[in-house]
């Protein structure tokens, strides 16, 4: 499929599926039909040209497939009466923005596990094929196909699952953030034709922001993604190794994305009710505007982490605040704060890594080295392990050399 056709098809996918589900119910069956229609478009359009009304073309093809599927099912279950009820009614051929929103809420159904919510959102709203999603998550296509089938069956049993209240929107944002992080943290060595999950997450979040412009947290997440993604080129070396924030070449940060994210978060925080994604975006904006780590407004970042701690308390937030406090007020203050979460996070690699960093700042080389080594053993990320091992090695060999 050519890139232009692929982009067009994926953009239209949720609006086609949304209409079909509104007409026929039966999300599971409609979703299969739309996938088939998308594949047909991918095969025909590059060859025969894009139809004048591509959305209408997809709706027509997918509708036929839905009716066929209903017939086949009715033949199996001898419920002929059901078919008549399912014949497509002539609904107005206009896409409805609310359809897409309903789809998003449905894909992030509270009955589904997170991996299922992620897979279903990428397929039904993102318009990706099962094979593309499977490749992006490094799992066999059969596994991903089964996960999607199971998720759809679960939705069929559970129904829409109550009203689409604010907590359902929060669930959608959580899923979009998971997709973004999966893409953002992927190594640079991924195959060329792999879908870029972070770009996909930004695209769908932009869609959600368009549908819910007054929701401050949707805007906050959008800004956070833009500001984080702006650093993408600077955060890995060509060999895949990680470059920490302090050592990144800030001239390679994407200034256009930073400007868009910064403007969005400034406007949002001036008008909307405050929420955790907005605060995280504001922190990312402060990093983005700083010319160096030393010239970063750490005091302000520490204040923002304090606000985040009240909005969404958790030991990981405190851990991040400890870094900012150490930069703003010295390592001793940071280490004191860190000690307050030792009971909860003591066995976590991030705790050990931050502790190593703060001990290094404090000049306690021996303890810092041990903390880095502990963190290297605990992390599940290979590039991070290499990074932590080199931080430890930079501090000299010490007595424990060769022991781990």
């Amino acid at each position, binding site marked *: 499929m050519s890139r232009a056709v692929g982009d067009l098809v994926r953009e239209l996918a949720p609006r086609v599926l949304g209409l079909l589900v509104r007409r026929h119910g039966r999300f599971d069956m409609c979703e299969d039909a739309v996938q088939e229609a998308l594949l047909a478009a991918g095969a025909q359009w590059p060859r025969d040209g894009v139809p004048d009304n591509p959305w209408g073309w997809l709706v027509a093809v997918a509708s036929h497939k839905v009716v066929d599927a209903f017939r086949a099912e009715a033949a199996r279950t001898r419920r002929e009466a059901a078919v008549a009820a399912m014949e497509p009614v002539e609904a107005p051929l206009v896409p409805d923005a609310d359809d897409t929103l309903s789809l998003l809420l449905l894909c992030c159904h509270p009955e589904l596990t997170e*991996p299922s919510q992620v897979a279903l959102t990428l397929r039904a709203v993102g318009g990706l094929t099962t094979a593309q999603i499977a490749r992006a998550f490094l799992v066999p296509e059969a596994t991903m196909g*089964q996960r999607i089938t199971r998720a759809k069956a679960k939705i069929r049993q559970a129904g829409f699952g109550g009203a689409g209240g604010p907590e359902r929107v929060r669930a959608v944002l959580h899923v979009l953030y998971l997709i973004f992080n999966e893409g953002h943290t992927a190594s640079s060595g991924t195959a060329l034709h792999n879908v870029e999950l972070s770009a996909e997450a930004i695209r769908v979040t932009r869609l959600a922001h368009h549908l819910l412009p007054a929701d401050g947290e949707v805007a906050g997440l959008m800004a956070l993604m833009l500001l984080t993604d702006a650093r993408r080129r600077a955060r890995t070396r060509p060999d895949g190794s990680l470059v920490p*924030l302090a050592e990144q070449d800030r001239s390679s940060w994407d200034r256009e994305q930073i400007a868009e994210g910064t403007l969005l978060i400034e406007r949002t925080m001036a008008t909307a009710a405050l929420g955790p994604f907005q605060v995280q975006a504001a922190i990312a904006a402060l990093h983005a505007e700083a010319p160096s780590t030393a010239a970063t407004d750490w005091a302000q970042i520490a204040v923002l982490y304090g606000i985040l701690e009240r909005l969404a308390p958790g030991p990981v937030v405190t851990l991040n605040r400890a870094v900012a406090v150490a930069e703003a007020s010295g390592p001793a203050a940071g280490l004191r704060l860190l000690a307050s979460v030792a009971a909860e996070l003591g066995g976590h690699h991030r705790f050990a890594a931050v502790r190593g960093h703060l001990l290094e700042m404090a000049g306690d080389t021996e303890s810092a080295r041990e903390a880095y080594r502990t963190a290297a053993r605990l992390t*599940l990320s*290979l*590039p991070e392990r290499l990074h932590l091992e080199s931080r430890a090695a930079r501090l000299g060999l010490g007595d424990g050399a060769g022991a781990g």
Partner: protein
Amino acid sequence: MKFLLIMHMNPAVWDGLTEAERKAVMAGHEGFITEVTESGELLGTQALGDPSTSAVVRVRDGVPVVTDGPYAEVKEYLGGFYHIDVDSRERALELAAKIPDAAVDGLGVEVRPVMFAAGPDL
């Protein structure tokens, strides 16, 4: 999150089971495979040959030296594994408990996370 559910085999324990017990374990694996396949969590599974059929390769001064037999002489060795992709560590532990070997006296299933080639923000 991806995990390896590792079955450690102990021939002394296995040989001590009755034939009915051994069959029950094998049948239990079939049911387990069906369950994790249908849930979309199974990435792969293999059972391994007896370590007496292994060979160990060591390259010394650029020359490969092949020694027949296992890497280490131990009572328990890697007998097979399930590679799974699940929601959480809790789910991995829950699945491990469903593997029939886990219920055999003297055996246990090891749950170990798989590392990934991606890096977080530093």
